């Protein structure tokens, strides 16, 4: 009834080609953005539950946003270009450690070619860190020109283990810290130090909004169509004139770039101090699950998947305590594992294409409402 595009006539190419062709979708998007950018800070300022608490921002919304961004990154590679990757943790780590190095000053003791870069401001550090991640992504993407599917996953797994090792062993990356743990410098953006939870939240939100918009635009343009053609059948794509080298490596580069930004944010904004374990293979799997549960080849799915994988266990963890059920934390955390696992299985049986597909089905039903079939 409310969700129907009847009567929405497009009179220009621009109107026909916009990101959200249906007016209700556009309104919904603006409402969500307004809520995220204005609503939540307002609720926070007036301490209105649940957004008034620091916990909501620091422990749920900030990690949710950052992991959504990482999931968008992986979705471009796996969901849109069809290149299975288990190296997300490594690319995030490269983003984080490179940004850390750029922000604290790079010094390469190469004898004659002593290269020194003074500490850079925060924004260039994060972007340069992400660029490093993109470069490494291209390098580890080269095997994708020859190998596919599970074999490629193993090649990216090598990236994961290699960089785990590098950041533990090569002391240069941790500025020779005796314990191998590094601590993020001040989040200074153009003289403004981002510190309060709400500021950190808005910082992440700006990054996520920009990159989500960018990704959404990329995937529906020329390059995105190349990726999808490569994903659906690479031989056919090649015959149609798509260069696999360009299509696959660009997917690796852009995906790693976005994951690099996510990694830098995860380290600088969420953790504050971190060790290589923060970007272990578990992180790679976590992000892959987000993409699979959320829906391969969907930007919205990345957000839904991140919400499911990250937020659901946290909520389940608190339910018994909130209801006053006296069971031990041990049992609760085991129950959380069981319930989350069971839900994932159930969801994948019912809807193998994830939340994004569920969302689409829901939209279809709404269009036909009140007589859906």
């Amino acid at each position, binding site marked *: 009834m409310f969700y129907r595009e009847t009567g929405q006539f497009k009179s220009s190419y621009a109107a026909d080609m916009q990101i959200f062709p249906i007016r209700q979708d556009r309104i919904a998007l603006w409402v969500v953005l307004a809520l995220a950018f204005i609503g939540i800070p307002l609720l926070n300022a007036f301490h209105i*539950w*649940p957004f008034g*608490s*620091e*916990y909501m921002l*620091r*422990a749920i919304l900030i*990690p949710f946003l950052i992991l959504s961004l990482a999931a968008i990154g992986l979705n471009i590679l796996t969901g849109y270009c069809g290149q299975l990757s288990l190296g997300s943790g490594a690319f995030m780590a490269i983003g984080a450690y490179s940004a850390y190095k750029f922000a*604290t000053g790079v010094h390469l003791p190469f004898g004659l070619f002593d290269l020194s870069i003074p500490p850079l401001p925060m924004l260039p550090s994060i972007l340069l860190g992400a660029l490093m991640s993109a470069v490494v992504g291209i390098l580890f993407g080269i095997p994708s020109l020859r190998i596919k599917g599970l074999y490629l996953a193993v090649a990216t797994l090598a990236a994961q283990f290699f960089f785990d090792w590098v950041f*533990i062993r090569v002391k240069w990356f941790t500025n020779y810290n*005796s*314990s*191998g*743990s590094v*601590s*993020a*410098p*001040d989040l200074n953006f153009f003289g403004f130090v981002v*510190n309060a939870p709400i500021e950190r939240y808005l910082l992440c939100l700006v990054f996520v909004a920009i990159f989500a918009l960018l990704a959404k635009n990329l995937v529906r343009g020329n390059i995105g169509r190349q990726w999808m053609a490569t994903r659906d059948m690479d031989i056919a794509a090649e015959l149609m004139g798509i260069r696999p080298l360009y299509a696959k490596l660009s997917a690796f580069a852009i995906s790693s770039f976005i994951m690099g930004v996510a990694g830098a944010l995860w380290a600088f904004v*969420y*953790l*504050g*101090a*971190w*060790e290589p*374990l*923060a970007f*272990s293979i578990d992180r790679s799997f976590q992000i892959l699950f987000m993409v699979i549960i959320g829906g391969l080849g969907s930007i919205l799915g990345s957000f839904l998947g991140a919400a499911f994988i990250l*937020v*659901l266990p*946290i*909520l389940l*963890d*608190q*339910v018994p*305590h*909130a209801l006053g059920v006296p069971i*031990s*934390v*041990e049992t*609760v*955390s*085991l129950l959380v594992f069981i319930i989350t696992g069971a839900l994932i299985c159930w*969801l994948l049986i*019912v*809807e193998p294409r994830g*939340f994004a597909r*569920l969302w689409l*089905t*829901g939209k279809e*039903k709404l269009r036909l409402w009140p007589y859906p079939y």
Partner: protein
Amino acid sequence: MRKLTLALTALALGATAMTGPATAQTNEQFIPALVYRTGPYAPNGIPFANGVADYWTLLNERDGGINGVKIVFEECETGYATDKGVECYERLKGKGPTGAAYFSPLSTGITFALTDKVPGDKIPLLTMGYGRSESRNGAVFPWNFIAVGSYWTAADVAIQHIAKELGGFDKLKGKKISLVYHDSPYGKEPIAALEARAKVNGFDFKAIPVTHPGVEQKSQWLAIRQDRPDYVLLWGWGVMNSTSIKEAAAVGFPRDKVIGVWWSGAEPDVTPAGDQSTGYKALMLQHGPGKFAVHADLEKNVVSKGKAAAKEDFAQVLYNRGLINSMIGTEAIRTAMKKYGNKPMTGEQVRWGFENLNLTAARIKELGFEGMLQPLRFSCEDHQGADVARMQQWDGKAWKTISDYYKADEKILAPLVKENAAKYATEKKITARDCSKES
């Protein structure tokens, strides 16, 4: 089916807004507990968490809290993971009428992450026997209290004991000492102190990392068999410890030449390796296992009433450590109450309590901890309070104390603390407090 899925998804979204704000009573002191009762480190995490909880229960049952202020506590499962630990910290820090009194994460990784967060939230961090060794410097780390001993203390005492076994410090020259360590900030901490010691005493030091969680260490021990060090120091945690002992046995390395840190010297570390652990030595964070005066109180007030968290781990090494951890924390709250009155304390007031805590031998006896702990006194400069440790040996059935107290060598450690604290201060742009001006 699809309809059901849709409905359930909608329901799940609705349920997101379920967990309501908790109601708080006024005369209660909230103390959070970051625990890990699951995962690869659970065998060690459980007895510690039980000790921590049982001492609080004891205070509530026997004394009605601290000076009449009832203790309420809540556990949050971290699984030893840093990001989960940060989530738990955020969840618990604001609870209770005055917020969290102090945090004890029992994980070096979580300690590192929280060290950056606690100054903003004004909550002290009690890291008894773990965490940043340089946080002993209270001028740079006002919120960290690395009570009883740091990893540098442990490393130094271990070398002192080796020297004693060999018959003097001059005998250390040319000897080979290897460190098998958990490859994380925890395991890397002692390296700086051991390297400093190696320079002074002229022994060959080699660090051999083991990746988390430490169940795979064949190649490390084969390297040790090849290298034939005179002593192996073990800096493991959880399943890594018993695996190390089994591997040492497999390559025929004498167990009495393996010395573990105090986190590698509890019952769950040796019992899985069975007879192979006989002779294995470990440092004591002052105390060992066994029952003391406080245990009689616990049996009377907590265990007999069925309120104890402990089961067979009662009076084990890590359980006792949990008791001491809670005792130091609650005594800090008590000290703070002397200044601020008998009401729930804020984190800031508890910090003052920690800094002015003076556990004399008489007070320790009064609390029932005589024989477990030496006198401990914090000050503005010194957030460690004590730097002594003993050595124990597993005889196949129980831990036996085999040495008297060793005192860590300040000549070697003090410059390290100073240097690293200064480095942290410059990195984080912290101006150190002037301790001579503190009241």
